[in-house]
């Protein structure tokens, strides 16, 4: 990252090689459209290039830092570009295998991911599903209420309580 911050494009290219497939998977999940995901990924890496001098290891591993940039950008685009589309309407993305928490146990950043996995698994089934759908597919409270066929107020309190429980769990 230090060499990228000093303008080393070759290092940046290597970072892209190492991370782009994961980030593309993330933004494609949220945006559910190839054209939007293509645009989003470009913006993510252009932002990362400019933000590289501000990167500090206390902001997490490089991958984690890139994920936060990618997710922010994808959520912005999703809110703006496809207010009502459903992921199920987009075959190319619906075909993707559903994510499972099990995949977290296999990742390189095993310690963070495993702790998060353990804490999420302690949540009740439906609130857990809300949190995961919101994270992976970028669903809002309203979309979750429609998808799970639950009142909006129920969804909101599930999500809020789950998040606060997560924080407590991770802090212990």
């Amino acid at each position, binding site marked *: 990252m230090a060499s990228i911050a000093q303008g080393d*494009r070759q290092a*940046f*290219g290597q970072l*892209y090689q190492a991370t*782009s*497939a*994961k980030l*593309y*998977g*993330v933004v*494609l*999940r949220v945006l559910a459209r190839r054209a939007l995901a*293509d645009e989003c*990924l*470009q913006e993510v*890496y*252009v932002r990362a290039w400019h933000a590289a001098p501000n990167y500090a290891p206390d*902001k*997490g591993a490089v*991958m*984690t*830092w890139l*994920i*936060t940039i*990618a*997710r*922010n950008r994808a*959520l912005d685009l999703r*809110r703006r570009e496809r207010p009502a589309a459903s992921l199920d309407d987009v075959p190319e993305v619906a075909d*993707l295998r559903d*994510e*499972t*928490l*099990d*995949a*977290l146990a296999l*990742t390189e*950043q095993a310690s*963070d*991911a495993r702790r*998060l996995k353990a804490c*999420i698994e302690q949540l009740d089934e439906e609130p857990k599903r809300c*949190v*995961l759908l*919101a*994270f*992976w597919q*970028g*669903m*809002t*409270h*309203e979309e*979750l209420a429609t998808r799970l066929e639950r009142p909006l107020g129920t969804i909101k309190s599930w*999500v*809020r309580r789950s*998040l*606060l429980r*997560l*924080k407590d769990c*991770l802090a212990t």
Partner: protein
Amino acid sequence: MSDSPATPPEDWEALAAELALGVLSGQELADAEGLEAREPAFRRLVEAWRLRLAPLALAVQPVVPPSVLWSLIEARLPGGRPAEAPGLVQQLTHRLKIWRMATATLALAAVALAVLVAMPGILRPPAPERFVAVLGEGAQSPQFLVTVDLGKQVVSIVPVAQIGSPSGDFELWLVKGEQAPKSLGLISASDGRKLAVGDLAQPALLKGGLLAISLEPKGGSPTGAPTGPVIYTGPLLPAPE
């Protein structure tokens, strides 16, 4: 509600978590984003939540992005080189190297093949890929040279002598044994023409077959079988490579 009451700081933690997760929309989202822009303390909470949740993304199945994206990204960096720059050039150079290696291999293979061919009996003759026929009124007066190239899936018809414009259209037929003649299409009396091989692309069908040209009404035979006089014929012969 633009006059929505400000979120009290004791609720900031939950709001920051919701904003980071991405569940907010509409006015709630606008309010939270406003707070994030105004209040450094709230901004830090949001940032902490983003990092806290980020490992969940590691569970997402990777998808390799289109290869052109990297070139587009490079072009958007400051002092950006054009999109055709290094990435693409490197790819092309790499492909060229592969082609060169392939060509060298092919040259070696050609030498080996030449050796084998020079020793009859080692190689069985492959199924013929090309057939030729010379069509005329008997062998003495060739009018058309027809080549059927199964590799290229094309039938080429070349007129080899001047003939007057016919009153109708010339149609080319494949005749094989007792089977009904199959039309290959209309041909021009004066210009070369290429037709698709279509469903005739079988060496077994062509071998021992006969090509014939009949004079049909404008637009070709109305029945799917020759209706006019057959003017030229010629046998199909496997062509040496």
